């Protein structure tokens, strides 16, 4: 099975079945337009087109450990331009979500930030712009977390001085109980599975 970049014939099937929008990859004709359109293509180890090739070739490790699936900014250029109408961005997000669920993607980085983001939505229904970065930074441990937070502090102070910080903590929405019930149901019914 999945050794060091070994060939795993079941991987493509796994992606089609378990990853949100994963089955869309079957339509890819490898034209490379998505890769050419991506603003972060130079930072990605494998641009989207290549990710799809690797999936079909059963290269589980390269795909799941790839930096590319964590770098997507959600700019939608790939989706707009793909001649086969593949929602490339949704596949990239689906892969990232799947990787986190399987514990492959580390706790720090965009993926983890998104995880904290989601927890806050689930718990209060909204995002509190003050405490979210702090919670995120603390994921790397207390000391480095405080350091990262202080590095961003000048920005926060500037925002504060220009009335762009809300002082009161965000309160729960009134319908939070119902929202939780809905989200639990969605988690159970959705393809990306429980996280």
């Amino acid at each position, binding site marked *: 099975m999945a050794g060091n970049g070994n060939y795993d014939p079941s991987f493509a099937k796994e992606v089609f079945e378990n990853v*949100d*929008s994963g089955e869309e990859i079957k339509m890819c004709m490898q034209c490379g337009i998505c890769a050419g359109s991506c*603003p*972060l293509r130079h*930072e990605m180890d494998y641009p989207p087109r290549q990710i799809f090739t690797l999936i079909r070739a059963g290269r589980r490790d390269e795909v799941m450990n790839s930096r590319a699936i964590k*770098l*997507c*900014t*959600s*700019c*939608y*250029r790939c*989706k*707009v331009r793909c001649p086969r109408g593949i929602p490339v961005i*949704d596949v990239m997000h*689906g892969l*990232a*979500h799947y990787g*986190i669920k399987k514990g492959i993607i580390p706790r720090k*980085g*965009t*993926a*983890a*930030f*998104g*995880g904290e*983001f*989601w*927890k806050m*939505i*689930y718990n209060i229904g*909204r*995002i509190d712009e*003050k405490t979210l*970065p702090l919670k*995120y930074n603390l994921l790397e441990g207390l000391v480095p977390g405080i350091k990262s937070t202080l590095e*961003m502090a*000048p*920005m926060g102070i500037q*925002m504060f001085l*220009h*009335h*762009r910080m*809300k002082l009161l903590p965000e309160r729960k*929405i*009134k*319908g939070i109980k*119902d*929202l939780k*019930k*809905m*989200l639990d*149901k*969605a*988690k159970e*019914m*959705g*393809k*990306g599975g429980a*996280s």
Partner: protein
Amino acid sequence: MKYFLYGGCSLEAGGKNYMVSLEPVCKALGMELEEIEDWNCCGASISYAGANELSIMTLNARNIAIAESTGGYDIVAPCSSCYIQLLKTNHELKEDEELRNKINVILKEGNLNFKGSLNVRHLMDVLYNDAGIDKIKSKTVKSLNGLKVAGYVGCQTVRPYGEYDSVERPKVHDQLLKAIGADPVPFPKKMQCCGSGIFLTELDRCLGLVKEILEDAIANGAQIISTVCPMCALNLEMYQDKVNAKFGTSFNMPVVYLTQLMAVAFGMDLKSEAALDYCVIPPEGIIKAAIGG
């Protein structure tokens, strides 16, 4: 015209100058805005890390369903990220019956139902298509007198559906700027993504994107950047220091919201309505010089 306003989380905080300025501008144009009752966060573009597609769709379907059952007016989203989340959900649920049924099973947990009776629209869309250029021109009492503005569009403002503007060659932002007397400069990077929500986590990779956008705006003669999304504004304005530190540049480019410029042109108060003092890089000097006073 009456609308639901979906301000989302950022218009209450980092994007406050957007909210402060859009309210009087919309009012002057005869648009009435009402908040969606007990709205929840749209999930932004980053929630996929913690949730599957269906869960993120649920968030947006709940907001739309509440809007449908409390008045049914179109929803206006000023934040491009909120806009795209709501639009995508509305679009896919209207088109796909199976998905709609699934969502309605979920919404039933909160006694809500998605009918598909309203539209989700970006603020630029309603300014351009409902209020209209003529009305905006007629409200302009202090022309911006040829102020050179880079009308930054960014990514999610028109992509992926191109509901009200071209996804490859958008023109609405520039048309709105022209209507208030500004001179929008041609600006090839106006569609390049600014890095969005991965900024906090992938800082080094995103600073390059912001640098390219700023450089391009300046090379084309812009004196100021106009945006229509709180994430764009935040990234382009607040990270100039870090770009300067990393690349040895000396950017000090004011970044405002389109609605701030409109408030100025409509002769409104520069502070309480145009919210110019909310900007960290002060735009007052350039703007006052343009309007003459």
